[in-house]
């Protein structure tokens, strides 16, 4: 058991730190910028990080990456945090969509898209979820129909899309065959976000901020070569993205800014509260969970560096993080009182945003199902949708009868 850097890792860390020391003055001061200027400034900074080898750390060298392992990625993350500069803007592209293109894209797609993605010239978004296909992702209804000339026409709606408002491209899961069971008639596409027929609408959250977007597609034309991973193989291609997502979550739970020191400080400032056994009990439980999260991410990293890929149980880290942060928000607002809910409070956003996060990225219930079945080997729920052509599914559902 060893948490320390190997000599090679220490050397790499020193090299990263030196680069950051030299270039950190070029990083944008996000707090000082106007809302409109933040994205361009962060894209430019991502480009600099890429030039310095601090973006795409785990990407193969042939696509502009560093060909290194997850530990080096974490070292870069840690040093960027320590230097107090912003990280890359397009976490979704570099962490999930790029690796999917590397795995499933054609040579043309790789050479066209990966470079601009890496350097922040083109930001990407993930177009999977729909109003009626959230945790049940294979239920997507957005429909792409192939034309006689091989091109496609796309109509439908996506939701919960981060970064759509300034993305150049999206990776989109669409139904291309409704006459086969629902997992089988799906295809993945690259969609230029400036295409005719696309409407993007900010989706305001309970906290009042627009964290996500809805994206509407009205008969959008896509080239024949927009398909990623083959027609009808969309489900498998999507699973690749989800696997990289899980990996990102497993490594980055503390990255939300939910950590023991920050929460404790809020309580410590209140002389009455810090001596109150009830407050301390709740704080101790929250902090224990947050410490667990930290060491779980080290475990994931350790496993990765041994060549293992984290299983679905890595998702439990998210469950714990959200739980601990919700509990912390409750505690801190109980200590501070109504003032904690004021718009100007450091805590109001967290308190109001977290209930929604519990449902984001596959609800907690579905995650627990998956882990129960895939990790513990428990028997599955009876499925009423198995083997049924998608087009007949809704009428069967409405009857509520077993297939």
């Amino acid at each position, binding site marked *: 058991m060893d948490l320390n850097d190997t000599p090679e890792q220490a050397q790499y860390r020193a090299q990263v730190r030196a680069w950051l020391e030299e270039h950190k003055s070029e990083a944008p001061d996000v707090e000082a910028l106007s809302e409109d200027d933040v994205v361009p400034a962060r894209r430019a900074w991502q480009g600099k990080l890429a030039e310095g080898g601090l973006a795409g750390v785990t990407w193969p060298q042939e696509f502009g990456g560093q060909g290194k392992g997850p530990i080096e990625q974490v070292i870069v993350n840690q040093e960027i945090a320590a230097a107090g500069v912003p990280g890359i803007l397009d976490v979704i592209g570099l962490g999930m969509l790029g690796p999917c293109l590397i795995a499933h894209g054609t040579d043309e797609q790789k050479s066209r898209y990966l470079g601009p993605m890496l350097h922040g010239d083109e930001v990407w978004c993930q177009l999977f979820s729909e109003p009626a296909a959230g945790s049940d992702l294979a239920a997507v209804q957005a429909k792409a129909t192939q034309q006689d000339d091989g091109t496609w026409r796309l109509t439908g709606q996506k939701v919960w899309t981060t970064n759509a408002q300034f993305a150049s491209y999206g990776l989109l899961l669409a139904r291309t065959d409704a006459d086969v069971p629902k997992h089988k008639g799906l295809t993945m596409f690259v969609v230029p976000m400036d295409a005719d027929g696309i409407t993007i609408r900010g989706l305001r959250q309970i906290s*009042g901020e627009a964290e996500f977007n809805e994206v509407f597609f009205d008969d959008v034309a896509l080239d024949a070569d927009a398909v990623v991973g083959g027609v009808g193989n969309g489900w498998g291609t999507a699973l690749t993205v989800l696997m990289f997502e899980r990996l990102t979550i497993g490594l980055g739970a503390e990255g939300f800014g939910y950590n023991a020191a920050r929460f404790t400080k809020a309580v410590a400032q209140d002389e009455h509260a810090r001596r109150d056994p009830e407050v301390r009990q709740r704080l101790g439980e929250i902090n224990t969970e947050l410490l667990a999260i930290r060491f779980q991410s080290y475990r994931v990293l350790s496993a990765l560096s041994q060549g293992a890929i984290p299983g679905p149980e890595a998702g439990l880290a998210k469950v714990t993080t959200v739980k601990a942060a919700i509990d912390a928000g409750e505690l801190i607002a109980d200590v501070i009182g109504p*003032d904690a*809910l004021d718009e100007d409070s450091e805590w109001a956003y967290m*308190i109001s945003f977290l209930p929604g996060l519990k449902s984001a990225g596959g609800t907690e219930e579905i995650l627990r199902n998956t882990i129960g079945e895939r990790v513990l080997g428990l028997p599955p729920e009876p499925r009423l949708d198995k083997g049924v052509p998608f087009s007949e599914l809704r009428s069967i559902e409405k009857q509520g009868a077993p297939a």
Partner: protein
Amino acid sequence: MNLELTDEQQALREAATGALSRVADYEVLRDALEGAARPENWGLVAEQGWAGLLVSEANGGAELSLFDAMLLLIEAGKLLVSHELLGHLPATTLLDAASYPGTADYAEGTKRAAFLAARPPGDVETAWTVEARSGSARAAAPTLNADGTVSGEVAWVVDAPGADLLVGVAVDGSGTAKTVAIETGASGVSIEGPVLRYDSSRLLGNVSLSNAPATVLEGADPARAWYVAQALLAAESYGAVETALTVSVEYAKERYTFGRPIGSYQAMKHGLVEILRQRENAYAVMLYAGWSYEDKPEEFALAASAARTAAGHALDYAARQQIATHGGIGATWEHDAPLFFRRSQLSRRLLGGIGDSTDRVAGELLAA
């Protein structure tokens, strides 16, 4: 023994539902979150005769029971209608008990009073305390000066902005708590507010008193008024739980995932039944509060604190479950679930907070 509603109570409730649904509007509440004016329904309150619910007929009121007032607050809570009864009704019980001159105006609703809520001493904490602006330590109640004026600060006073009269507690030089009434127009009275735009149906103010002229109300029991406020807040919270459950159950029947309505899954089903369980518990303890107010006054502090605790926890749970039931959409601005969440978050921390009412349940029984 009969715990069913009387015909009069049924009629009161139906009339309330009718009147309140004419003014209920979630869209207006969302607009108010962004700076539009909070909906004011005092005109309706006065017109319906609700202002004098707890005032004796002799003083111009309707002389109904506390449970009748709770039934009204349940209906208001169901629809998240804003009203100023949470501040006004407890204040009027004090005015009525002391037959304060002009009580009839408050009973008719031509004037409005606000309860300057003070928490009575308990088995451990022996002082009267009031809400502090920030932090977990409670503040000392205002002082009744030798010249009869009152000085002090009370934060987060429900329904204080715009009220004509503040009624609460001030402690004199000998440490005795007196019930005092303070005209808000008088010198030395300053009410900051409305403050906090988090639950836009709620009206809050921070009160500053600096040698403010006051009338001492003899014969009024300010501890009882504190528990009246707890019981009313319980009822209002209970109403919100009812809606959260109804709306969530409807959605769980209609929304399908993996080929089944989500309400057929145990996790969802059991969560919704848990709202029901907590709701039923809350209603049972509210019955206790309503009954003990008149028939068992020595248990009213316990009953009202327990009602606040049960209904508050039920709303905490229901508001989160409502969001979870609706998946991602339940956490979006346009949805109504966040309005119930905001209601739960703020209510939890008013009038001493749920932690305090729970502590009081323990304290009342430990001291028994």
